[in-house]
């Protein structure tokens, strides 16, 4: 009797250890080879955009933390900047520096978790523990800065909530001094590890054209060979005063835009963030940390769209104001949402075990997809 073969439909998630949150995939597979993996999102939808129409402008800030809890500082900053743009508020220079210090620290820990989780998802548990160990230390610094370890609510419209505590600069610099050698060790452990490289190189390659057409952003876009970073190419805040490199994927272990490129771009960005932080601590001026703000914020009638470079790339805030104390419409376009939408196309013809590597390398965060 001949063996019957037919396409099988599998359900991956919503509760699955390697979907990075509550996401479901409908996987159509013929043996080990997938014909398609269809993402099904929305399990964490909290209608943050609707809440944005109900809260006043200052009251919405903590909700932006929840939109992307792994990179809350960057999400805070984008939201503050869109309101400031509409109201034409000048942010004090010290506050700008504090924002960048906070967001670059946030980028480091977000990327650490991304690369650690990628390594764990393809079978290496040790790098994840190393990454989390370092992440805890940054969390301590963040706690000293703003009292929170995950959802910071640190940025205010017009500045930041607190100045640095005494000794913060020394603590941070001493952390960075120890952190750089640890990153080199991490690289030695993972980046050239034959087993790891074979699991991620040539897997899930995204072409440059696809990356732009599907609006991939941030490290995922750069890994596909697009030399683009909002911090350098459309600079905001104090980025023009800082010297850093934009890391672009080169396909060094396989194809351009594969999972390895997305991994190595993040590793290099961590080191660039360290460079940025060192400059910030030298250059930070004295001064106030919050502009003179009116008690109730009423942006003029109009609209603004602001994009900032978050850990997961370009996060876009689109605010329409009708002149009242509440937003008329607030849209958050996140990197995870667009990153997720490409999976259906890229997964066609992939091995089923590689899907996990693809998801982890795109660094999607479920609350940021669903908002």
């Amino acid at each position, binding site marked *: 009797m001949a063996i019957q073969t037919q396409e099988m439909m599998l359900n991956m998630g919503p509760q699955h250890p390697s979907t990075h949150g509550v996401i479901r995939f409908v996987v159509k597979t013929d043996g080990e080879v997938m014909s398609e993996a269809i993402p099904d999102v929305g399990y964490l939808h909290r209608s943050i955009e609707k809440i944005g129409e109900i809260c006043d402008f200052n009251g919405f800030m903590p909700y932006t933390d929840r939109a992307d809890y792994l990179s809350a500082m960057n999400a805070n900053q984008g939201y503050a900047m869109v309101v400031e743009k509409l109201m034409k508020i000048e942010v004090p220079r010290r506050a700008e520096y504090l924002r960048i210090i906070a967001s670059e620290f946030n980028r480091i820990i977000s990327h650490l978790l991304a690369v650690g989780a990628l390594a764990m998802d393809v079978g290496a548990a040790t790098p994840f523990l190393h990454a989390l160990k370092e992440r805890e230390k940054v969390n301590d610094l963040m706690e000293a800065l703003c009292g929170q370890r995950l959802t910071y609510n640190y940025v205010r419209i017009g500045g930041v909530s607190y100045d640095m505590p005494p000794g913060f600069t020394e603590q941070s610099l001493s952390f960075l001094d120890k952190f750089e050698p640890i990153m080199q060790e991490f690289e030695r452990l993972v980046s050239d590890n034959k087993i790891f490289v074979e699991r991620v190189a040539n897997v899930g390659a995204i072409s440059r054209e696809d990356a732009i057409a599907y609006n991939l952003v941030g490290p995922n876009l750069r890994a596909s060979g697009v030399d683009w970073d909002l911090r350098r190419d459309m600079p905001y805040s104090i980025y023009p005063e800082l010297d850093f490199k934009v890391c672009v994927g080169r396909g060094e272990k396989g194809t351009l835009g594969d999972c390895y490129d997305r991994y190595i771009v993040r590793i290099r960005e961590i080191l660039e963030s360290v460079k940025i932080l060192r400059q910030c601590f030298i250059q930070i001026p004295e001064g106030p940390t919050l502009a003179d703000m009116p008690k109730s914020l009423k942006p003029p*009638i*109009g609209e603004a*769209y602001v994009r900032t470079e978050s850990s997961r790339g370009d996060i876009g805030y689109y605010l329409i104001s009708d002149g009242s104390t509440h937003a008329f419409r607030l849209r958050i376009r996140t990197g995870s949402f667009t990153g997720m939408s490409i999976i259906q196309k890229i997964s066609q013809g992939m091995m089923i075990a590689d899907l996990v590597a693809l998801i982890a390398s795109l660094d999607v965060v479920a609350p940021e997809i669903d908002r």
Partner: protein
Amino acid sequence: MSFEELIQTLQGKFGAESLVTTTDRAGDPFVMVPAAKIVEILTFCRDDASLAFDCLSNLTGVDAPPDDAEVVYHLFSYSKKHSLTCKVRVPKSNPHVSSVEKIYPTANWQEREAFDLIGIIFDGHSDLRRIMLPEDWIGHPLRKDYKEAADYHGISTSRPSLLYPEKG
């Protein structure tokens, strides 16, 4: 290119009367485009060498009470580093806009979101299903006149407040 130059290029191609700009608003300028022409205009924006809008950065559905809904397209060009905001306006009684999924694949999910939360129907979309909410959800929550149903499959959506019992 600046906003004025972009508009001049577009008006040179499509005529001045169909592209309306508003200047009395704060913040970013935008251009209103007739809903029937959106596919044609965005195709031109993408393919014209001087515009080169290769990226649809954001697609937003907006409720515009009392009668209308809007779709906002934020275009961006990686090579030219310029951006443009286009809007189309359709009546909520017949909220049909042509899908731009074939021009910008990223519109697929973003249009699904606008369909789900605002209720705009994108003609020619390959897979227009709800994306955030369950398939059997009633209504479109981001509309200003949306009223939450009292229950969903027998699960109550409200509870008495401990602090303000009188509000129930």
